[in-house]
C-alpha cells in the first residue's frame, strides 16, 4: 500500500480487507479506498495461495500430474481431472470407451452440484442467511460420500485418469447415486423456499453489483456470470466434450446481470445438472471403463501377473511414464465457475514441457473492481460471493 499515495485533503480511508476475512473465501486481500461507506477504488491482491502447480507439473510424468490438478480448484476436483485428461488424450489421439465418457459426465455434474452447493451456502452466509448453509452442506456431504465410494477420497479424488478412470466403478454405485439424485430436486426447492422470495435476500441481491455484458466479456469473465447477463454460451453445448452432445439439458440464462440473476442461474443449473446425472445413470453404457492402449493405461492386475507383456508395460508406465508425441493442445471445459482450460505443450518426452491452466476464477476475479467501485461496502461482500471464486483456482 505504501506505493500508492493518498492525497492529504481527501477524507478517504483505506481498508485492508483480508487476506483473512470470512467473505473472501480463502486468502484474498482486497484494498478498498473508502469515502464513507462508498468504495471508490478496489484493488485485489492475490498470490497468497500460489504453490507453483504449473512448475511442479513439469517435473512429473503425465499420469502423476493428475494428482496436482485436484489441488487447483478444491471444489471442482473432477472438472480439473477431466480437463487435464482430455487435453493429454487429445495430444495422444486416444479414443475413450463410452462407459468411461459417460461416467466422466456423471461425475463432472456431481462436481458441479458440489461446487454450487458450497457457493450457495457460503454466499448466503455472507449476506446473513445462516440456515441455507446448513442445508447445502447436508447435501454436499452426500456427494462427497459418493466420491469417496468411487475413489476412496472425498475431495482429492484423482479418479479420472489419462485413458479412462482410475478404478472400476464400485459395486452399488447406481443405488447410491440414484438415492441422492431422486431426492435432490426437492432439496433445491427447499433452498428456493428460503431465499427466492425472501424480502431481505431480494434487497441484498437485486440490482447489486451490475456491470454491462460488454465489460464482463472484455474483462475475461466466463460461465454462469455471463449467462446471468443473457449470453447463451456454455462450452458443454458449443464445443461438446466427453459425449455431452448425447445429453438433453438446457442452458439457463437471465437478463438482469445482478447478484440475484447469478443466484437464479446457478440454482437452475443445479436442476439441469441433476437431469444430466439422471440421464447418465439410466443410460450408462456397459463395456470397458478405460481405453485399450497398453502403452498408456495400466494393465489389469490379473493380466499383469499372468502375461509377460503386460508386466513389462506395467513396469515401464510406472517407472518411466508414457511418451506423448510433440505438439500442443488447448482443451476447454465448462467448470462450475466458467471456462476451465489446459494448454499443454509436449516435447515428446514422458513429462509435460509446459502446463498452463486457464482457470475461471482468475478471469472472473479480474472483474471485481468494476463490480464494487462506486457502490456500498456491504455490497462488495455480496459481489464477491456472486463471483464464486476459489483462491486455489486463482493462484494455482
Amino acid at each position, binding site marked *: 500500500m505504501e506505493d500508492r499515495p493518498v492525497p492529504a485533503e481527501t477524507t478517504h480511508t483505506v481498508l485492508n480487507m483480508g487476506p483473512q476475512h470470512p467473505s473472501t473465501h480463502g486468502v484474498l486481500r482486497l484494498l478498498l479506498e473508502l469515502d464513507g461507506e462508498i468504495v471508490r477504488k478496489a484493488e485485489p491482491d492475490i498470490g497468497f495461495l500460489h504453490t507453483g502447480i504449473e*512448475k511442479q507439473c513439469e517435473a512429473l510424468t503425465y499420469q502423476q500430474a493428475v494428482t496436482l490438478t485436484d489441488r487447483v480448484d478444491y471444489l471442482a476436483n473432477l472438472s480439473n481431472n477431466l480437463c487435464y485428461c482430455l487435453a493429454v488424450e487429445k495430444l495422444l489421439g486416444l479414443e475413450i470407451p463410452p462407459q468411461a465418457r459417460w461416467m466422466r459426465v456423471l461425475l463432472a455434474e456431481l462436481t458441479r452440484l458440489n461446487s454450487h452447493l458450497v457457493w450457495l451456502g457460503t454466499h448466503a452466509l455472507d449476506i446473513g442467511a445462516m440456515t441455507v448453509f446448513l442445508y447445502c452442506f447436508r447435501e454436499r456431504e452426500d456427494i462427497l460420500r459418493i466420491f469417496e465410494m468411487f475413489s476412496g477420497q472425498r475431495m482429492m479424488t484423482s479418479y479420472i485418469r489419462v485413458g479412462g478412470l482410475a478404478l472400476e466403478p464400485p459395486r452399488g454405485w447406481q443405488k447410491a447415486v440414484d438415492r441422492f439424485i431422486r431426492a435432490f430436486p426437492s432439496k433445491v426447492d427447499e433452498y428456493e423456499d428460503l431465499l427466492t422470495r425472501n424480502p431481505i435476500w431480494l434487497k441484498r441481491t437485486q440490482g447489486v453489483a451490475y456491470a454491462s455484458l460488454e465489460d464482463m466479456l472484455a*474483462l475475461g469473465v466466463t460461465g454462469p456470470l455471463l449467462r446471468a447477463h443473457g449470453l447463451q454460451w456454455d462450452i458443454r453445448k458449443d464445443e461438446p466434450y466427453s459425449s455431452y452432445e448425447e445429453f438433453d439439458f438446457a442452458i439457463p440464462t437471465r437478463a438482469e446481470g445482478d447478484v440475484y440473476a447469478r443466484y437464479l442461474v446457478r440454482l437452475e443449473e443445479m436442476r439441469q445438472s441433476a437431469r444430466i446425472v439422471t440421464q447418465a445413470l439410466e443410460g450408462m453404457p456397459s463395456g470397458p471403463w478405460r481405453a485399450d492402449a497398453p502403452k498408456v493405461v495400466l494393465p489389469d492386475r490379473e493380466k499383469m501377473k499372468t502375461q509377460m507383456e503386460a508386466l513389462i508395460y506395467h513396469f515401464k508406465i510406472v517407472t518411466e511414464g508414457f511418451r506423448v508425441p510433440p505438439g*500442443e493442445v488447448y482443451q476447454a471445459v465448462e467448470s462450475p465457475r466458467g471456462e476451465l482450460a489446459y*494448454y499443454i505443450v509436449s516435447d515428446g518426452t514422458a513429462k509435460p514441457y509446459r502446463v*498452463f491452466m486457464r482457470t475461471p476464477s*482468475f*478471469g472472473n476475479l479480474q472483474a471485481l473492481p468494476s463490480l464494487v467501485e462506486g457502490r456500498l461496502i456491504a455490497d462488495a461482500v455480496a459481489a464477491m460471493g456472486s463471483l464464486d471464486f476459489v483462491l486455489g483456482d486463482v493462484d494455482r
Partner: protein
Amino acid sequence: MLPPDVHTLPVVVALENACPGAILSGRVHRGELTLEIDPARILETCRYLCSERGFSRISSVTAVDWHPAEPRFEVVYHLHAIQQHERLRLKCRIPGAEPSLDSVTAVWRGADWYEREAFDLFGIQFLGHPNLRRILMPEEWEGHPLRKDYPVHGHKYSYKDE
C-alpha cells in the same frame, strides 16, 4: 511459407489482406489453428482480429520457455470468437535477452492480469501495459519461477537454511 491447409482458411486469408506479412507461419494440429505472428505487429493483428473478425474474448496470455534455444520465449495468445464458435492461437517468438513486446491490454482489458502473470513468472516485458507489476509472487522476489533455468527444488529459500 504457410502450408496449403492453413493458407485457404478464411481467417488467414482475411488477416493476410489486412496485415500483409504479419503471419510468419501457421499450423493446424489436433484441429487447432496456430499462427505465428511477427512480434512487432502483434498489437495491429490483435486489433484487427478483435474488431473485424469477432474475436471479442481473449481466453489467456501465457508463455513457453524454450531455453537454451533462441529465440527463447514464445508468448501464446488464445483468442475466442463466441458467436462463430471459433478459437485461434497466436504465437510470438521473442529473444531471451530482455524479452519484450507490445501489450494487448488496449484491445482486451482482460489481458491485464494474464500479462502481469507472464511478466511475473517469465520476466517478459509488455510495453504499454498500464500496471505491470508482479501478481502471484511477492514484489521483492528475485527471478522468474517458470523459466526453465529456475530450479523446481533447492532455491535459496529452502527449509534447510532456516
